[in-house]
C-alpha cells in the first residue's frame, strides 16, 4: 500500500504518530469479516461459501458458560470446516464463520 488510506486514532492520540495497535481503524489492515453468525446443535451445516472459511465456535455448557471450540470434554471429532460445510459433532454451538478463508 502506498501513502494513502484511512486511519483513525483513539481519542487523545495523534493519528500521524500513533502506533498501529493504537488505531481504532486502519485501512492498512484487514478486518475479519463475519459471513454468518448462528447457533447449531450437533449437525452438518452448509456454509454456502465456495472455499474453506475461517471460523470460531463457542460451546455452551452448564447452562450459561461458553468455552471456545472443543474444550468441553466430549468424545468424537472436534468442530471443523470443509469446502461446503461446517461440522459440529456435538451440540450447543455458537459460531461465527468469517469471509476470510483458510484455504
Amino acid at each position, binding site marked *: 500500500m502506498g501513502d494513502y488510506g484511512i486511519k483513525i486514532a483513539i481519542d487523545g492520540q495523534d493519528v500521524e504518530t500513533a502506533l498501529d495497535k493504537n488505531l481504532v*481503524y486502519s485501512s492498512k*489492515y484487514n478486518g475479519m469479516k463475519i459471513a454468518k453468525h448462528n447457533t447449531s446443535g450437533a449437525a452438518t451445516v452448509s456454509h454456502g461459501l465456495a472455499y474453506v472459511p475461517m471460523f*470460531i465456535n463457542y460451546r455452551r455448557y452448564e447452562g450459561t458458560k461458553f468455552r*471456545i471450540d472443543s*474444550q468441553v470434554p466430549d468424545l468424537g*471429532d472436534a*468442530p471443523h470446516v*470443509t469446502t461446503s460445510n461446517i461440522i459440529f459433532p456435538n451440540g450447543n454451538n455458537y459460531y461465527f464463520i468469517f469471509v*476470510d478463508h483458510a484455504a
Partner: protein
Amino acid sequence: MGDYGLKITRTGVATTSTDPRDYVLWSKYKSLKSQARVTTTLVLIAGTSSITKTIPHDLGYSPLFFVAAEMNSNKWYNLHAIQTIPIDSSPGFAYAISSYTNSTNLVISMSCPGKTFATNQTYNITYFIIIDEIV
C-alpha cells in the same frame, strides 16, 4: 471522545442508533486489525510423534490470532483451544494440538500419542496475526 468520528451502520439502520451492534464501523470502538493471511505447513517427521512450529511475528507484544489446520483431508480445525482430533487414517489414535502467542512468536505444538508414521506427514496451516494486543 468528542462529537466527531466515523460511523457506518448496517443496511437499513440510521446512524442515530446508539446500539454498537448496528454498526459496521464506529470509530468510538477499536476494530480488530489483521495482518495478511499466511499459509504454511507443519511437518511431522517419519518415526516421530510430536512437532512444535515457532513462527516469529516481530510485534514485541502478545497479539490476538486466528489459526486453522487441515489435520485430515479437507477437514480444517481451529487451533485456538487444546484440540484432540481423531486421525482419520488411523482409527483409535488422535492428534493433540494447540497454539499460543507470546511477545515474539506464534507457537503451534502437535503430538499424536502412541502413533508414528512411516513417512513425513505434512499439514496445511493458515493463520492471521491480529495486531491488537492481548497484553
